[in-house]
């Protein structure tokens, strides 16, 4: 592959995830994060070439709801802009493509949305095709449970294994000041929590939350002045599968596997274990295990560390979960991960997912050094 442009994450601002913010609209939550991200990079809004955001009208409960975010992103004078109806991680993916096309050198990527305003499980039922799967009332818990069940059958993993993974994530969340759940959870207690939809117990589920995030990307030549230790993007790829959960092998994630292979190839790596840590958008232990298998990660090994931030099981702000994973990779590589830092981290992988049963997967591989010279 011929040389691509080196692009780095140079900034990331996030408010702590909360269950429900009673005082702020999603625009009110976003504005301070955009300001902070720019301030920390030492730039003004006018220094940024491009803005792109990810959010969902159905989660906002307003058709065209995302339009209001323009007013708090510094959209004056008029800016080059795009909005995707996807997790903001895909907005970052697009911004990276624009940099490769030579269309911009700097970009802000925003994620916002208040999942507390609607009944999220009912809303997400609408993602399913209206004739069959949606019509029978499947919600994301049910579809996750179907996948977890298929996985358990295939892998012979048990409820006990689920509890251990959930407890590990929760323990990590204690050290992440932005997580929603910040208390240690005893795996015994988790494995006695009530069934939500078997085989998923309450203790294994990701609590929905809300926050706002702003991530800053910059190309080589600009990145160096904006951050002392940028997180350089070495490779990325995304893949969607067909939705029909009856037609897919739910025990595996073919899309995550392919996206990971492609991202690693671009990064010049052969295996994910060449990364020091991974941040996976796994909303329950089965998803985490499925993704580890797809990415050929052996969870028994010390490296890569899985979800040093605690991951979505410590707080799932839905349309931003994936971008936060990339933000966490930035924090680790730039030495800003505080108490949840992975010692000596030089390479990390961020994963974002969309749709039921890991239908779409996006993988970023980042490193402390530039990829192409």
């Amino acid at each position, binding site marked *: 592959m*011929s040389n*691509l442009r080196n692009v780095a994450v140079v900034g990331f601002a996030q408010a702590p995830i909360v269950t429900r913010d009673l005082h702020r609209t999603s625009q009110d939550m976003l504005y301070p994060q955009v300001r902070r991200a720019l301030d920390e990079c030492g730039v003004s809004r006018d220094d940024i070439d491009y*803005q792109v955001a990810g959010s*969902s*009208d*159905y989660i906002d409960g*307003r*058709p*065209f*709801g*995302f*339009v*209001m975010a*323009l*007013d708090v992103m510094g*959209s*004056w*004078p*008029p*800016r*080059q*802009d*795009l*909005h*995707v*109806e*996807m997790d903001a991680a*895909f907005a970052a*993916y*697009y911004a990276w*493509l*624009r940099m*490769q*096309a*030579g*269309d911009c050198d700097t970009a802000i990527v925003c994620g916002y949305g208040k999942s507390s305003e609607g009944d999220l499980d009912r*809303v*997400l039922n*609408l*993602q*399913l*095709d*209206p*004739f069959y799967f*949606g019509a029978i009332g499947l919600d994301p818990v049910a579809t996750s449970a179907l996948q977890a069940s298929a996985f358990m059958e295939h892998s012979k993993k048990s409820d006990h294994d689920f509890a251990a993974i959930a407890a590990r994530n929760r323990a990590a969340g204690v050290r992440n000041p932005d997580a929603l759940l910040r208390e240690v959870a005893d795996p015994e207690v988790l494995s006695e929590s009530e069934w939500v939809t078997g085989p998923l117990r309450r203790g294994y589920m990701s609590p929905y939350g809300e926050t706002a995030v702003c991530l800053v990307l910059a190309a080589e030549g600009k990145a160096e002045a904006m951050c002392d230790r940028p997180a350089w993007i070495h490779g990325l*790829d*995304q*893949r*969607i*599968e*067909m*939705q*029909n959960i009856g037609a897919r092998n739910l025990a595996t994630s*073919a899309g995550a596997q*392919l996206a990971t292979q492609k991202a690693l190839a671009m990064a010049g790596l052969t295996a994910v274990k060449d990364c020091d840590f991974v941040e996976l958008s796994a909303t329950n232990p089965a998803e985490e295990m499925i993704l580890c298998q797809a990415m050929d990660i052996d969870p028994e090994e010390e490296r890569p560390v899985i979800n040093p931030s605690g991951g979505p099981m410590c707080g799932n702000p839905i349309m931003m979960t994936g971008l936060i994973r990339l933000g966490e990779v930035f924090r680790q590589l730039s030495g800003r991960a505080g108490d949840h830092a992975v010692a000596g981290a030089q390479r990390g992988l961020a994963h974002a997912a*969309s*749709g*039921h049963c890991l*239908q*779409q997967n996006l993988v970023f591989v980042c490193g402390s050094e530039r990829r192409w010279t």
Partner: protein
Amino acid sequence: MKRPVAVVGVGQTHHSARRADVSIAGLVREAVDRALLDAGLEHKDIDAIVIGKAPDQLEGVMQPEQYLAGALGAHMKPLLRVHTAGSVGASTALAAVTHVASGLFERVLTVAFEKQSEGNAMWALSPSLPFTPPLVAGAGGFFAPYCRAYIAKTGAPPHIGPMIAVNARENAMRNQYAHLREPVTLEEVTESFMLWEPIRYLETCPSSDGAVAMVLASEEAAKQGPRKPAWVKAGYSYAEAMWVPGRDQVSPRAGRDCVKHVYETAGITDPWNQIDTAEIYVPFSWFEAMWLENLGFCEEGEGWKVVDRGDQKFGRHLPINPSGGVMCTNPIGASGMLRLGETALQVMGRAGEHQVEGCKTALGHAYGGGAQYFAIWIVGDEM
């Protein structure tokens, strides 16, 4: 834009009030299949899919691209879903251009659609924002006051809006895919029901079901194709905040900045004479006059005179919306891409009955939100 990007195929559905003969997937496939056929390609040749549509509440399916992934041939491919309100079809096409220009993808399928008969479009377009009094039903209620402001500012005579409507229908008669194709007379328009003064019923866009798709390709891939492609000379999407004090909603700055950038990159210094045709987003008659000015085709205040003289009619100096435009066909998510797709057909010489003779350079335009989002491109018959 580092690398040349070409349009190598265009396909669209027959647009109508209600495509009861196909599901959402069927509607989208009609456009996709036609685009692939047009390009001489198969699904396996496509490297990525970029899809756009307007609010999901219009069909009652959230992120329908997930349900449509199989129908789009997107299985195990990269897919991006764009949403920038009314301009979405155009900004989606531009996002697809970026995919090719990045060098990462050789051939990208881009699709835009709306099957708004499946939901309640009026409800979806009249969002009752919490804590805000509901004031008007429909998008027209928001824009009509600015049409009035334009008329007051320019002293335009009242027949201009109706003239635009008559002309749009005349154009649509030459477009086999258009939704509204029956001609109307000036009297019929002037006597039609006044919805939000000054906008009458026959000066308003319909609610349509429809889809459109294009295949964008790299230089190398384009040269392998069966036809002469349309080359993207420039394309940008801009947005501006809503509540800027003194914001000009008659000639929004985002539109002016966007088109200026497009002209600069495309090397256009005299749009009126260098552009052979333009497909611009006119959902309510008066916007045609307003956008002629905003796009720099004429001086400020002169847009209505262009219409009065008929210079923008088919066969005249600068035919505007030879396809009939949004006033004759409006599947909201698709309309922006229809504008851009029509310009590609024009410079490829494949616009059939509504072909503008000798068209070499065409401008495609769309807008959305409270006149905040603008996505514009120029295509030419040479790289």
